[in-house]
């Protein structure tokens, strides 16, 4: 463990801090970090609490006798409907996988010319993309519904995929990462005979891994937490969060099952986060963008 706490050994001429500076920084970071993690640890711990510990007085933070009761209760509530639980999981995973892949590709693809090419309409498009992030979607829902209904997409996965893939957030993110990419490399690739599509796939995307991996995390979270309650009425097409939210909606009596739901729902994003972050850190420590 101690080995990991030390700073990365960089080349000699990089300034490094004194050992007490490192220790101080570590204590500071861990102190704030525990404040950040506390409510989540509490959720995880509560999910395994038996009924009598949930309403203990005085309240106790940690679980004494962990049990799977809450998960069983959650399953029994959900299993009352005629659609098997696994179906909801598959629905959510499918929409999340398709949506995330699709959005990361079209957003990165749009971001490249916006950041690096000059063409009529570029500055207008760039402005619109930022401005659209600042407009709250709550009042546009009605119109989106009308458009979806007119296209006959209500009660299909398209109604979840298309409006979310129309968000400009990811394009702006990728645009900001593409801007920093050195023009000299793009020039060199063009002189070597690569066309713009080749540059995008073979030169740009591998170097922008920190950017699009970050986008994968945001997009995955967005799709995974989609309830789709406004667009999906068909029982077998419903999303997992929509089904599970009816459990926590029942209030304090289901506090334990509610925590189990929260824990279940946050697991896939955490896994995606850990896998993708470690892969970025791996590649970036070895290469980095170099001119």
């Amino acid at each position, binding site marked *: 463990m101690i080995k990991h*706490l030390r700073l990365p050994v*960089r*080349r000699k001429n*990089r*300034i490094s*801090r004194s050992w007490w500076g490192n220790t101080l920084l570590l204590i500071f*970071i861990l102190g*704030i*970090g525990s404040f*950040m*993690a506390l*409510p*989540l640890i509490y959720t995880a711990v509560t999910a395994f609490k038996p009924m009598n510990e949930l*309403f203990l007085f005085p*309240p106790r933070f940690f679980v004494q006798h962990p049990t799977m009761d809450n998960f069983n209760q959650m399953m029994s509530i959900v299993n009352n409907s005629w659609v098997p639980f696994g179906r909801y999981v598959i629905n959510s995973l499918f929409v999340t996988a398709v949506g995330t892949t699709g959005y990361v590709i*079209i957003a990165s*693809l*749009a971001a490249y*010319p*916006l950041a690096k*090419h*000059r*063409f*009529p309409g570029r500055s207008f498009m760039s402005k619109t*993309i930022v401005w*659209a*992030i600042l*407009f709250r979607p*709550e*009042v*546009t829902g*009605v*119109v989106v519904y009308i*458009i979806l209904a007119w296209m006959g997409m209500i009660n299909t996965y398209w109604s979840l995929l*298309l409006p979310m*893939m*129309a*968000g400009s957030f990811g*394009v702006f*993110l990728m645009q*900001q*990462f593409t801007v*920093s990419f050195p*023009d000299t490399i793009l020039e060199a690739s063009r002189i070597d005979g690569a066309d*713009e*599509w080749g540059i995008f796939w073979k030169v740009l995307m591998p170097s*922008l891994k920190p950017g699009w991996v*970050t986008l994968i*995390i945001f997009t995955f*979270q967005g799709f995974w937490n989609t309830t789709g309650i406004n667009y999906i009425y068909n029982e077998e097409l419903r999303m997992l969060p929509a089904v599970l939210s009816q459990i926590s909606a029942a209030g304090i009596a289901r506090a334990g099952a509610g925590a189990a739901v*929260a824990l279940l729902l946050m697991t896939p*994003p*955490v896994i995606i*986060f*850990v896998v993708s972050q*470690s892969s*970025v*850190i791996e590649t970036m*420590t070895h290469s980095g*963008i170099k001119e």
Partner: protein
Amino acid sequence: MRSSTKRSFVRTENSGLIELSHGIRRDMKGNNKEITLGRKVKASRTSYLMIAPFALLFTVFTVIPVVVAIILSFTSFNMVQFPTFVGLENYSRMLLDDEIFLIAIRNTLIFAFLTGPLGYVMSFLFAWCINEFRSVFKALLTLIFYAPALAGNVYYVWTYIFSGDQYGFLNNYLISGGLISEPIQWLTDKNYNLSVVVIVVIWLSMGAGFLAFVAGLQSINKEYYEAAAIDGIRNRWQELRHVTLPQMVPQLLFGAVTSISASFAVGYQSIALTGFPSTDYSTHTLLIHMLDYGTVRYEMGYASTVAVFLFGMMLLSWIVINKMLRRISND
């Protein structure tokens, strides 16, 4: 070299290889060409093709709905009958006759000027600190700090901590520590509940911006630091000011947008913690006001007016911050 004229023209366009005089460039074949809008559009065909898939979705599902919402702000619309045009009536009602709107503005500005900048600076500071650590530890710390945003709407857990009865963790500790004699109604007492929401919003602010900062710091070419050390930069603060910050301007701009869009739109957090409506509207914000009219009272026209107003405030602060941040990269 298929379609060589077009391709080479794009090449000239993007790199500015040979600019002869104003408006005339020489393409790869050596022909001078006057640049007209039509030619530019034609030459940029690849650029448009790359943007097309997103642009199509963006227009249909974002631009059109937003434009319609702006139009609706000038109408009276109950979501059943067809909207009727009322001119500026919604706007004058909002600014002159709506007392709760004034409370909402006050609270929204508190979040925008307190939690917004604070969360933004903290996000960068922590990302910068975390970037100093080794790989595995770095990933772990990033996860811990990003965890509140990663876990969806788990912030309701704070209701257990701030719960008004003796079962609440905070009350329980304060009472057993002898600091207070009876439980404080953290979530319903209007002297406290806004502060509670502020704390939770700050806790939630290590979000998209923070993660973009962590990723951005990783993409900075290490050679810049080596060059800077040779050029006489002697401590971390100088390094931050003269190397790191200028390199991070694109990510800082992204972080600013997410920070603005999050801090002006605080609302769901206050509803989850302090209920709706909160005691005497003490934690009421513009977003809640909009939700109130849009989803409870079905006055979609008026809700759109509030949304347009909120958008105007966000846009204004974006324009100011954008100017400020671009200055960092220039000097």
